[in-house]
């Protein structure tokens, strides 16, 4: 079993610890994306949020996305870690890192990966609002 490229984490994501897996002597470019918990959404003040995952399928689908990215783009390595559990404003919710020989491929792959993760991976966000309400987000 090889080291998984997509992971779920119940504890804070340590970006510095993820980085060595992306190092490659031939790679001149590294692009990364981080999703942070915002203090607002759709005009409502957000206090904190929870992420819930259907873990077995999330891991399989995340891994499939990263494999697809490696086939579609000229990249050396690509990784993603997504938080689950309870997060506060400013916390890192998701990290994507891509290394490539050239910057175009690194940017393109990184953006494609986060778009696909948000579209396909079974993870749901429950936002807790300043007014005490909360709600699971199910985008149209």
């Amino acid at each position, binding site marked *: 079993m090889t080291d998984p490229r997509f992971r779920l984490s119940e504890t804070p994501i340590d970006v510095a610890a993820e980085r060595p897996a992306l190092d490659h002597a031939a790679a001149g470019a590294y692009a990364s994306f981080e*999703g942070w918990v915002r203090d607002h959404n759709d005009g409502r003040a957000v206090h904190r949020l929870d*992420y*819930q*995952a*259907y873990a*077995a*399928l*999330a891991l*399989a689908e995340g891994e499939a996305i990263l494999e697809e990215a490696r086939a579609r783009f000229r990249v050396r390595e690509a990784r993603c870690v*997504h938080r689950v559990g309870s997060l506060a404003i400013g916390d890192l*919710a*998701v990290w994507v890192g891509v290394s490539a020989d050239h910057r175009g491929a690194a940017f393109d792959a990184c953006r494609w990966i*986060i778009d696909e*993760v*948000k*579209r*396909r*991976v*079974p*993870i*749901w*966000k*429950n936002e807790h609002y300043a007014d005490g309400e909360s*709600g*699971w*987000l*199910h*985008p*149209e």
Partner: protein
Amino acid sequence: MNVKLLYFASLADRAGRGAETRDSAARTPRELYAEVAAAHGFAFPLERLRVAVNGAFVDVDRPLADGDEIVFLPPVSGG
């Protein structure tokens, strides 16, 4: 036939549980969803859900087998 269902996010809230085992005559996920939507008052039309059986996405008209684990996935919001 016995099937196991897992519920996530607003479906879990509405069902009041994260999982249940049902004795069902449903032959497909489509028939099973009609049954559990009526039982728990799920508002999502089936078209807005994806279906997974035993940890893989499947078509809603795929036959079910005894012991299957079925998940109706509401639209995701990770990232």
